[in-house]
């Protein structure tokens, strides 16, 4: 598996199986940080978290501590949280508002646009010292799509629009649930961690095979309330599908299951909401958006969007991961609709929710299982024989099929091997017209 001290990623990732070493190996983890999280686009946060000039929040891109901040000029920036003098972090609180970031070590002051405002006792530096040369270093690249802020440590690479590809339509569905087309990501944060690899979380987020088993108790509870989601959405006879848009962006597509416009039945003022949506988008688009109920998407590598939620995954070690869940609010709707979103989020998610903790339990059990590698392979072949491709190249399968997992690993291998193209296309099923 290792040649000249480097890892042979083609040997670890096959189209129908992966080697479990990809979840445990410290060297692979280090390569992931450089190649996946630093060279590519990583999600940082949503601009609605910092609406006012001076609003900031601490964030990470890979191992880089940064500050996402809206400057006095209104522009959102990603600045290094590192003093140019001796590397102290200049911002300590998770979020807040500041005109200046001051380094507490020797008193250097930076404006909230990152420029160096003052150094202490400046007579100690000669004329060659120019303050303009010592601002907080911005991330080499920043790009936003509908307020979703992405950063990259690499100065060059694919544009965000090209990287997102068709996945951007799903981000639209998520945001267009607001009749103003805007979400507010300040609905609180459910924070949890688990003793397992970060990829277990993104794979599980896009796994339509597990819910009836892992979430048996949750569905049992819903059954007591008279709701029959399990068979409609997740069973072998479900009409939902998996989609792989390329670049590791994959989704569980439940739109065909949600045609009844369920949100309107449970929320007070539902008809008022529909009217506002139709006024904004027209009847047809409003109907599509309402029935979609958001999306169920992975934006590779670290952003998941499920229903009302943004999920941000932060790898810390091969066997340790931290996850922040942001239940979002919709702008321009009645308070009852947002409260329905919040209460629904609590019922499943968070460290005391009725669903998500059982997923984490699976991750920790897998991390134990990896230690027994008498047969190190994990099988991802489910549904390969019935996978099809639509005209735009999107791969589609049954909701329980591992189309999504294969899509994630195809991108992971592309990035880890440094290839520009996907050399495995020869193994892909033949191109079929979309249904």
């Amino acid at each position, binding site marked *: 598996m290792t040649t000249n001290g480097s890892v042979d990623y083609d040997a670890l990732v096959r189209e129908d199986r992966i080697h479990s070493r990809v979840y445990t190996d410290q060297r692979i983890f280090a390569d992931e940080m450089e190649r996946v999280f630093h060279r590519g686009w990583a999600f940082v946060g949503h601009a609605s978290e910092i609406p006012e000039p001076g609003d900031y929040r601490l964030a990470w891109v890979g191992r880089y501590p940064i500050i996402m901040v809206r400057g006095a000029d209104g522009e959102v920036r990603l600045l290094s949280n590192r003093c140019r003098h001796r590397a102290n972090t200049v911002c300590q609180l*998770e979020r807040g508002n500041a005109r200046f970031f001051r380094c507490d070590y020797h008193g250097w002051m930076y404006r909230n646009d990152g420029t160096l405002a003052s150094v202490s006792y400046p007579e100690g530096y000669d004329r060659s010292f120019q303050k303009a040369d010592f601002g907080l270093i911005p991330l080499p690249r920043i790009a936003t799509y509908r307020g979703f802020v992405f950063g990259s440590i690499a100065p060059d690479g694919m544009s965000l629009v090209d990287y997102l590809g068709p996945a951007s339509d799903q981000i639209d569905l998520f945001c267009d649930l607001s009749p103003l087309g805007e979400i507010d990501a*300040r*609905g*609180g*944060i*459910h*924070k*949890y*961690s*688990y*003793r397992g690899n970060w990829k277990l979380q993104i794979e599980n987020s896009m796994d339509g095979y597990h819910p009836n088993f*892992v979430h*048996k*108790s*949750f569905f*049992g*509870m819903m059954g*007591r309330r008279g709701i029959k989601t399990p068979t409609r959405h997740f069973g072998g006879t479900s009409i939902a599908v998996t989609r792989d848009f390329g670049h590791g962006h994959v989704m569980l597509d439940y739109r065909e299951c949600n045609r009844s416009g369920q949100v309107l039945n449970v929320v007070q003022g539902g008809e008022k909401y529909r009217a506002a949506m139709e006024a904004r988008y027209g009847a047809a688009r409003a109907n599509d958006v309402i029935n979609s109920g958001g999306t169920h998407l992975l934006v590779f590598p670290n952003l998941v969007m499920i229903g009302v939620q943004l999920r941000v995954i932060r790898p810390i070690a091969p066997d340790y991961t*931290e*996850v922040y869940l942001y*239940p979002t*609010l919709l702008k321009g709707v009645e*308070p009852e609709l*947002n*409260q329905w979103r*919040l*209460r629904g*989020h*609590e*019922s499943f*998610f*968070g*460290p*005391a929710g*009725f669903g998500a*903790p*059982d997923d*984490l*339990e*699976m991750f920790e059990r897998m991390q134990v299982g990896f230690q027994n590698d008498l047969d190190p392979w994990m099988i991802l072949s489910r549904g390969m024989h019935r996978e099809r491709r639509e005209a735009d190249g999107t791969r589609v399968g049954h909701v329980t099929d591992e189309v999504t997992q294969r899509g994630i690993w195809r991108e992971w291998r592309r990035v880890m091997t440094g290839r520009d193209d996907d050399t495995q296309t020869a193994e892909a099923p033949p191109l079929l017209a979309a249904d």
Partner: protein
Amino acid sequence: MATLRERIEDFLFHEAKLIDEHRYDEWLALWTEDCLYWVPCNSDDADPARQAMIIYDNRARLDERIYRLTSGAAWAQQPRSRTRRLISNVEVRETDGGYAVESNCLIAELRRSRQDIFAARILYTLRPAGDSFRIALKKVLLLNNDEAIDNLTFLV
């Protein structure tokens, strides 16, 4: 003759014992029908109209929490957490129709060879019921409610 505070302390000790001994049905019977079991998220004063909570159970959801814990399929509690909790610093104030109670709570939780400590200030609204009390509100202000928590599926 026990003082009011002693009677309420006895009630809190009893509640703690029911949780630590996994006597869920008896614990449920301590609550009123219009109860709220509330664990704020991110800060003690987070607004439920604008922010998600860690727990925000009305009576129906509290019943569901116990249903889930006893369903045999709540994997995050298989094996289940063993807990032992201390209640102290109890303060009692009489209000219209009940009592506003504050206490400190320290919970040791053991699961899969790992022991965690949780600390909280707990606010109760208690109502008199015969010679005992019922819980109308239990608001648990976890010291670490703004930190990543692995698993809080046991009762706090």
